[in-house]
């Protein structure tokens, strides 16, 4: 088997740079923000190296762009590359965080020789604006070492590859730190010198693991790698013999497709919360509909109800010739939470979910809001209307700690136009918010007006009087 290894020296950086206009020096720093873990070529040319303290890096390049490391992002980007490489090779191995292996022995024939394979990969990398170092070897480790050392050459010549490996400095051979120190202390400088040591002695004096590692590089010990599987997305397409002119007509074929989806989800033991429906027309652009559930879901009935509500709002612009149902987002199935013996909370939760989903489907996501208290002393900031919470949980602030506030808070303070009849309580002084430019400095009172209404009134620093709310 012949392996091709792609080493992405600064994958996340490349990914970010391709969407950036400004091509100045850029680094990725570790989570705590103290150390540089990746530096782009521009930063490198200013002397910045990975492992360097951020402080030093900044003093070298005062205008450095800084991006914080995010493992999941990195994993996702690597996976994207795997998906791309999968177009060419069937046996692909992810080597996180920054490497990909592809078995290319079988490809040579397909592409007409190794140079063609090499060129295809390089061209793809160029198009994708990614830097990668390519290495070729007869074992995964050999390909990796050569790639990471930047010594990759487009050759499958065994002798040649062995020579590159032999000349590789110890430090580039990725021994563990202890083994590397020991080998250096023996005066060894290259991988070749390690190959030359008698293997029995090597295992005895250094470690059996070290010998195994060397043998894996050389190919005298198997080094099986699990092939990467592309993420499976669900896709079902329905082609219609007769064009369908009304949304109602789509429901019947949908039942079948959704049933298959449910079956598929059950097989995966997963849920989804988002479906895509693509309606293709003969002459115009396809119609794309996104359907969201309010929580993880897998039952065809529920999907169908949602889609039906959605389709009812939607009139078809032109007849449909085929319909595709796509699911790309899979969620692991959770054990139903908060289930008590009688199953009542469950029902409540379900009812809540169903209600929310229906309202959202009917009105659109944006139209639905949930009120919640905010920890802020300023009344206008003490509440928020945010996206609907998927789960009903304990309130963020214990009710006992909430101050006494009117049920009806006016959208903005209204000038007080009459002298109150009775004063009930006050002043309550609220002063704060200096840090975000929304400073308030007010004395609040509860007062009864002529009309008998209980008003929440305040006086501000300019001595003006305002009504801010009404008590019930």
């Amino acid at each position: 088997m012949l392996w091709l290894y792609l080493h992405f020296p600064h994958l996340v950086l490349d990914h970010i740079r391709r969407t950036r206009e400004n091509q100045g020096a850029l680094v990725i720093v570790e989570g705590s923000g103290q150390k540089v873990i990746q530096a782009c070529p521009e930063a490198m040319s200013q002397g910045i190296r990975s492992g360097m303290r951020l402080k030093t890096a900044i003093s070298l390049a005062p205008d450095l762009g800084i991006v914080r490391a995010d493992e999941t992002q990195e994993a996702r980007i690597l996976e994207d590359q795997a998906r791309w490489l999968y177009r060419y090779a069937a046996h692909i191995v992810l080597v996180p965080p920054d490497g990909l292996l592809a078995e290319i022995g079988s490809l040579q024939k397909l592409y007409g020789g190794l140079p063609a394979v090499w060129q295809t990969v390089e061209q793809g990398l160029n198009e994708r604006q990614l830097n990668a170092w390519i290495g070729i070897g007869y074992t995964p480790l050999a390909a990796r070492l050569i790639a990471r050392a930047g010594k990759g050459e487009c050759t499958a010549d065994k002798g040649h590859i062995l020579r590159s490996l032999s000349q590789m400095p110890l430090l580039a051979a990725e021994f563990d730190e202890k083994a590397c120190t020991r080998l250096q202390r023996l005066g060894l400088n290259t991988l070749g010198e390690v190959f030359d040591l008698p293997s029995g002695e090597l295992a005895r004096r250094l470690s059996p693991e070290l010998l195994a590692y060397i043998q894996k590089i050389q190919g005298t010990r198997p080094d099986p790698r699990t092939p990467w599987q592309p993420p499976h997305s669900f896709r079902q397409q329905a082609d219609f013999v007769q064009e369908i002119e009304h949304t109602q007509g789509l429901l019947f074929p949908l039942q079948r497709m959704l049933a298959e989806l449910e079956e598929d989800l059950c097989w995966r033991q997963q849920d989804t919360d988002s479906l895509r429906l693509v309606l293709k027309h003969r002459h115009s652009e396809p119609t794309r509909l996104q359907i969201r559930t309010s929580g993880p879901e897998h039952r065809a009935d529920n999907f169908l109800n949602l889609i039906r509500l959605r389709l009812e709002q939607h009139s078809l612009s032109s007849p449909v010739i085929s319909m595709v149902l796509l699911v790309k987002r899979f969620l692991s199935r959770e054990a139903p939470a908060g289930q008590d013996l009688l199953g009542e909370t469950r029902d409540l939760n379900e009812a809540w979910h169903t209600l929310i989903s229906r309202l959202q489907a009917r009105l659109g996501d944006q139209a639905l809001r949930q009120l919640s208290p905010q920890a802020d002393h300023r009344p206008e900031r003490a509440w928020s209307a945010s996206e609907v919470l998927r789960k009903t949980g304990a309130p963020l602030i214990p009710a006992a700690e909430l101050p006494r506030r009117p049920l009806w808070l006016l959208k903005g303070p209204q000038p007080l136009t009459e002298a109150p009849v009775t004063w009930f309580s006050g002043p309550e002084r609220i002063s704060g918010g200096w840090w975000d430019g929304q400073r308030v400095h007010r004395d609040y009172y509860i007062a009864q007006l002529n009309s008998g209404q209980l008003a929440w009134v305040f006086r501000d620093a300019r001595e003006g009087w305002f009504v801010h709310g009404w008590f019930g």
Partner: protein
Amino acid sequence: MSAQSYAELFCFSNFTFLTGASHPHELAEKAHELGYTALAITDACSVAGIPRAWAALANSPVKLITGSWFELSDTPTGASTPRFILLARTRKGYGQLCQLITTGRRRAEKGQYQLFYRDIETHSLDDCLCLWLPPAPTEADSDQALTCGEWLARLFDPRIWIAAARTLESGEEQHLARIHWLADQLRIPVAAVGEVHMHSRERQPLQDVLTALRNHTNLENAGHCLFQNGERYLRPLPVLKRLFPATWLAETLVIAGQCTFEPGSLRYEYPPDLVPEGETPAGYLKRLTREGERRRYPEGTPLQVQSLIRKELGLISEMKYEHYFLTIHDIVAFARSRGILCQGRGSAANSAVCYCLGITEVNPANVELLFERFISKDRNEPPDIDVDFEHERREEVIQYIYRRYTRERAALAATVIRYRPRSAIRDVGKALGFDPALVEQLLEGIDWRDKATNWRQQILDKKITRNPKVADQFFTLVNTLLGFPRHLSQHVGGFVISAGPLAELVPVENAAMADRTVIQWDKDDLESLGLMKVDVLALGMLSAIRKALELISEQKGKTFHIQDVPQEDPDTYAMLQKGDSIGVFQVESRAQINMLPRLKPATYYDLVIEVAIVRPGPIQGDMVHPYLRRKHGLEPVDYPNDAVRKVLERTLGVPIFQEQVIKLAMVAAGFSAGEADQLRRAMAAWKSHGDLTPFREKLVTGMLERGHDADFAERLYQQICGFGGYGFPESHAASFALLVYVSAWIKRHYPAAFYCALLNSQPMGFYSPSQLVQDARRHHVTVLPPDVNASQWDHTLEGKERHLRLGLRIIQGLSVNGAERIHQNRPAGGYRSASELRRLATLNQRDMELLAGANAMPAFTANRHQAYWQLLDHEQPTELFAEEVAVDYQPEYCQQLPEPSEGQNVLADYASQGLTLQRHPLALLREQGHLKFCLSAEQLKSTKAGIPVQVAGLVTGRQRPGSASGVTFVTLEDETGNVNVVVWLETARRQRKPLLTARLLHVKGVLERQGDIVHVMAGRLSDLSHLIQSLPVHSRNFH
């Protein structure tokens, strides 16, 4: 009782860390301004803010009340969490308060406290007043509140009040209703309090910032952690009258009236145990001095000294300082008895009495002129003696003090760690929610020595915020936060020793170090209260001198004491005049090495000046050049009048020492003694929070009025600023100069002993072992490598030739025990094989590998690679009485292993020992033709000034001294010595990368010369570090 006035009884200062938003003195001054009758500072389980508030109220009718706020960690059954304030009624009550605080603090980790309700029941607190802070209705129900009140009332009645604050926050009405109800139920009077967190409402933003930081969040997310408003400030009396019933206000005055304790009444009570029974302190001190006289002057005390002693003893008696001198004598005597070298310094240390008591070695007969400022009678300033001990053995002295006086009576003074620009910017940035990485970027970009620090612009430039308003806020907050205390740390060695339990004088708390306790006050606080401390400091050079003296004694065959060093040795001065001072105490820095050939010290007093002149004070005051010109007769020495002459005569009319500057303020600018003392304090505090500008006006006009020129006055002011924080008085310089002389004499006459002792006292001083070894070899000391068959743990001198044999301690990471066993179990004929070594010295694999890496087994291993190969074979179980067979000594050899090249050996030496005895890496690189046009350090000496040159070397030092604006000094080391490179700011800016990161630096520049001092003014810098890495590979080609 009139309700005209008010006493504030609940007030946090910023010594309640991250809570109080005002300094104690700000609170005190505000209380004075508002016309309060009294002010209590009640920090959380602390009295750390008291001395500062007290000092601020010194001339004010406002009475300072000492108190502390407590929150207990548990609750009596059925009660709410007790929160209350205790106020000290009398000195006795103060002692009780301190004792309780000590209990709470000693029990918890550094910076925390923990008190239980049992503590309140068991501690005697009958002379403290209690202000109870009942829980809010949202926190506890009425039953719990009542139970808590009943519990406290049982303990404190009739010395208990309910404290009522008006914060104008929501829920206040219910809270006040509860207070009325509780007062009614418990029949306890109510007193008004301000729950003060800041002296003025303007501090609310800072208080919010501190609150956010305390809760580990930022302002955006702090929400209800923040107070609802900024009402917790010292309110004007009319406002208070509007808010509180008159009876509640009147009650505060009743409480204040009962508190009669005054911090100023604290008097230091000396431990009586130092004076033998039947003797008076004065008589005993006199007797000890007399005994010392006989030891110091066996041929009879010179008349001059006799009268000096009489005068000094008289003064000591008058000021009642006998115990202080006896305490120091006792500690020094202990050190002597253990053979620990020590040396006192400070104004009182260099007295005839201290010389006789053995506290100092500075002989007043030789330098009588110096010490007119012995103890100041005018100011009530305690004498100041710091004693330096050998750094490796100071712990013995500290343990002795704890033993002698017990932990109940001795503790270290605190050091208040304050907000500095970096920490303030970081914390305010955090609270405002700035990206930490950007804040770091900002910090990196700020030039800290740029006096006109334009942070605001820099903040805008860095795009931390685009909002100039936010930048303004940030700027104001950072400036206000600067100088705020952050936590208490331990003083380097200032002990407070008391007669009675120390915890009744000042609370004691835990330090970060195990088994260390610190009091809650720092040295300024102690000084302002007139309390004394004894400074027990560590000095590496004393360890080195003691070790060198031992080696000299060994060589001479008889004990050689520090007193046996001949005085004023011309060879020693000749050496120093050449700037040959690496390793010599105090004058080994690069700046000092450059100064030595210019100042050309030839007497002890020249050394005193040498020590003090290369300091920010004289440099910023531009006094260095005038002094040098006058010393070398290039400028006439003159004095405007006799008073000035008296102050400046010793230093040729140029002020060098801190004492002179202060005296000059008196004689030349007309400062009174009191004003001069203020100036001295302001100088000491300037670095952190002091302000010297008020003195400037007075100094300059005073001097102009008295006929001095404006330029001199301005320079003197600059010098005063320079002294700030780094004050270097003559009395300290005199003691240091003595050690300079002694260490220089040893270096000149016993170089092997000198370097050996220095190496055995590492880490200390300016230079690494590698630099010391190179310097030793330049001084013709033969240095031998570490060897299991010759070395001990320490470095030693071998044989008659006094060769310096490196000890096994030079091998980084080697265990002390292993090394000791190698030495102790070594067979007469030495070890014969690695396995024998392993067996006899019972060494573990790690130690064996380190020995191999150090090539420390030359007798039985071909080279370090082969040595290592042998060791990697895992230990065979050794039979106890196995016959030693010849095979045992047959080293295994591995054909495949390469011989180490010279370069490899050099690098391996560096890796294992931090130095090499083989050729310097630069010599190898030069031989390989890598440094074609570079001159060596040696060649530079004979090169003409103004010539473009190239040099290269290992970077051993990069320095940006505060006194040289924007210049970076780089020291390069090659095989012949050191090259000094000067990099101007502009050059540095353009070539940051090589300047900051190169380990091997190549410099193109211009040679400059000042007498024997040679610099290279850098032009182009290039990083050659890669050559070091490649050393072994390249050198192989030559084999």
